[in-house]
């Protein structure tokens, strides 16, 4: 089997961060916050997080926060729940959640819940179960799930369940592995996995593995490294991951590496990007690839980070917050 090019991937992530002149990096500017999360989580899983300047990152993250409490994808871009979760995750990686005004942030997220329990992505009202996951994940990391109506939120996610056991973006929407991750993750964090038919969904998910060993996101589609994360994490949350051939999948991911310049692509010999580099490395972590840190399938953060948040301060009441402090 190929081996994971740890050093090269770390260097690749740093180089993308620095690249600013080409067309591609300008096009991607609006999701730099997601990019920061993908890149930094990858570095942590690789054991290389110390090569970045923590204070610089934290102050940049905070400069993307708006008056509403939500975060934009970059400085000056509008706030959206998509980037708000990434911001919280990045701060969690660095154990810096205490720089947040937690009440302000959690009020912003809670304000996006609709009457039917669903969540909008921002003030413009797009509804999607991705946003349900994000809201639930974010508030749980902040110990503030009580800010929303969890029961309604869960019922909405369940209303998006399909007859194949999977989940769509809204009721009636087709099952898609990314969407399934969001819905299963939301149900996992709220202790509601009994709403999932584990055998039915597990079979649908394990059938995403195609001959090459890679996973696709829907039936009769091409395999893609990013589904190593969406499908694998879902299978792990419902305890059915042994239904796929893990070794073959690991080989597929390793074959998508750019062995010369670092980075991982969607399929072998395609162009690499940070997104697929993260999903490839996270997938390998879920496959227990030697030397990688373990990642948590629901919170999409390294297990040590999640354990620190939920078990680190067990002496104090788990819902107790540290005193709010705003830094600009």
């Amino acid at each position, binding site marked *: 089997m190929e081996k994971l090019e740890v050093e090269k991937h770390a260097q690749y992530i740093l180089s993308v961060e620095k690249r600013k002149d080409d067309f591609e990096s300008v096009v991607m500017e*609006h999701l730099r916050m997601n990019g920061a999360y993908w890149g930094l989580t990858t570095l942590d899983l690789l054991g290389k997080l110390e090569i970045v300047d923590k204070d610089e990152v934290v102050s940049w993250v905070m400069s993307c926060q708006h008056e509403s409490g939500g975060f934009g994808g970059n400085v*000056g871009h509008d706030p959206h729940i998509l980037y708000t979760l990434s911001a919280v995750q990045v701060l969690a990686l660095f154990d810096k959640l205490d720089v947040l005004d937690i009440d302000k942030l959690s009020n912003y997220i809670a304000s996006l819940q609709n009457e039917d329990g669903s969540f909008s992505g921002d003030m413009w009202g797009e509804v999607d179960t991705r946003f349900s996951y994000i809201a639930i994940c974010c508030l749980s990391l902040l110990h503030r799930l009580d800010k929303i109506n969890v029961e309604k939120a869960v019922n909405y996610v369940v209303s998006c369940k399909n007859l194949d056991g999977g989940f769509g973006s809204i009721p009636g*929407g*087709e099952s898609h592995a990314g969407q399934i991750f969001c819905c299963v993750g939301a149900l996992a964090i709220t202790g509601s996995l009994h709403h999932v038919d584990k055998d039915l969904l597990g079979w649908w998910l*394990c059938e995403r593995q195609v001959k090459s060993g890679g996973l696709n996101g829907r039936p009769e589609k091409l395999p893609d490294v990013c589904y190593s994360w969406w499908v694998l994490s879902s299978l792990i949350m*419902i*305890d059915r991951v*042994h*239904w796929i051939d893990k070794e073959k999948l690991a080989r597929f991911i390793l074959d998508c590496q750019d062995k010369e310049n670092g980075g991982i*692509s969607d399929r072998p010999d395609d162009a690499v990007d940070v997104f697929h580099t993260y999903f490839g490395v996270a997938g390998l972590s879920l496959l227990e690839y030697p030397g990688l840190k373990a990642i948590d399938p629901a919170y999409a953060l390294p297990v040590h980070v999640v354990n620190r948040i939920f078990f680190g301060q067990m002496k104090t009441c788990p819902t107790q917050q540290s005193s709010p402090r705003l830094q600009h």
Partner: protein
Amino acid sequence: MHGRPRKPQKPVDDASIAKAAKLRVLQAQFFQNHHDKIYAKEALEISAKLLETNPEAYTAWNYRKLAVEHNLRSETDPDAIKAVLDEELRVVESALRRNFKCYGAWHHRKWVLNKGYSSVDHEFRLLDQFQKADSRNFHAWSYRRFVAALKNMSEEEELKYTTDMIETNFSNYSAWHNRSVLLSHLLKQKIEGFTPREKVLTEEYELVHQALFTDPDDQSGWFYHFWLLDQTVTPGAPVLVSSWPAHGSDLFVSFKGNLDGGVSSSFTSFCSDKGAFPLIIYFNQSVGGINSSTVTVKHLFDKNEDLIWVPLATNNSGNAQAWVTFLRFPDVKDDSLKAYPVEVKVGHSQCAFTVSLRSIDSKHGEGGSDMEMIVWKDDSFHASEPLLLSPPVVSLDQATTNKEPEQIDSRWHEETLANEIALFQELLSEINCKIGKLTLARLLRAHDKMIYKMPFADEKTHSKEVLDLFSDLMKLDPSHSRYYKDEHSLVLMEQVVSNRESLLTYCWKYGEAHPSYLCNPICLRLSKLSLSRIGSFENLLWVQMLDLSHNELWSIEGLEAMQLLSCLNLSNNKLRSFTALEPLKLLKSLKVLNISYNEIGAHSIDTSRYLFSSPLSHTVGDDWNIDAYVTDGVKMNYWEAAVIFKGLYLTQLDVVGNAIVDEKFNLFLTHILPSLVWLDGDRVY
């Protein structure tokens, strides 16, 4: 970024730099306008240009919405309003032509349409183009459902559209999916033309057969077929399938000691030191709302309304297949062997049994000491003693249930299954198709379950054929072999425990002397069967001693129904973590546990982390307090073990042969389990 070939790395070329610089200027102008709230024509054009180059620049969509709201603030002329909104639709359309997977663009379109000034028919024409270009685009399908609702299109019409799409290309999972959504609505609402249900489903089977026979290797149709099968066999009202004590049995309850020799069957004896014995009821599906108003128990020593029913489930859904309550008996010396009748009624189901009380106040008859160690070795078990009475196996002659209200469609069910079985047997005689084989196995299983439900059916089950199919599949499709293995195990287990003759060959008597908590020394030994999963718990409610060692179990889900278990051997399996042992938390009678030689602590990823109650999933309340049991140092590493063990009163535990075990861990165990007498074969002091 998807599907772009990797090119050798070279310095960024001038053209790209120039293009980037141009976009950057555009972007800067846009943000300036956005920031200054400028919504004039020129400013709008800049944002349109930006979006046409980069549809993902989501802030620009937001800006355009602000602009529309601003510019239409005092506009009342419908034509002027329409003109403004049409411009938005134009920008969206050109953005979608660049990237039709752009969430922001699709949402912007919905936002405009919701204002109610635009032609919905135009949207259908646009969708036809997009759906022709990519028939699987889920944004387009989603948008289609949106405009269909906006136009109040009938679901019949949309169903017709899916038929057209499917007939153009059978391999369109999106169309099949939409069909399943529409059809289940139509069936549920009994819309004209969609009754009777049987007729509609039969037609659907015909449609999907065309797809399956055209290209058996395409998954789309098979998933739809599986959904149809599910629609065909979905059980109706919950039915009671078994109970403990079993229907028609005579239970001997003894308290404070061992049974004497006068009792003829160990299968129906129980000892208690709590003045109560469990009553377990087991349904064919998970049910909720079991309480004294939905279940009636007639029992001399209890008032029905005092009984508290508890769901046997590891989740907090309030639903379970198995429910338990505790019946009391008086603390009297009664050697009359008087049998008290107990009757249980749930819905259309009922069961009845008798209870006789035995109080034994002498020392243990032939028994050993409670401090004695249970030894899970072959020579501890004897088959010699003839087991006069049989274990209570659920079967038809046992008839725990009243006849269900006649199902009119049961004939159709059976015919449909028989047809499908014949059809796929034929298909598979010609081609080797894995998903076809799996479907056949599922059809045969469904068929067996159905005849099992019909009284006095003497048809034979297909378990042998199903087992062969799964064995075949393991070879044919090795990537998913462990899925087939799990299914195989469930069928095998069912075969082993579902008839008396077979079950008896797995029942052994433990030792000459046994501790008093083990008043029933019959051990069900299901070891070395290569089981990866267990099931058929409805037949196992009576078991107090269970040996599942030397299998390949990764989960013990469902074991929580076996409330009488006091000795359990799970050694030499593939259990990966303590979180996989959650069902044990509900087994309050458990005294002896062997989990040695598993994989606990050997894996960095815990696959049952989220099926286990913990703060991670907000499934623990104020009672989450393991600090009393663990010190800071071991908290992070052993919290799962602490949660499992803190509620158990084990006297004997074997954990050796797991990666987690070391001196520190064993010390922790003796702390958290003060009742422990034996740890890994050594006396605990």
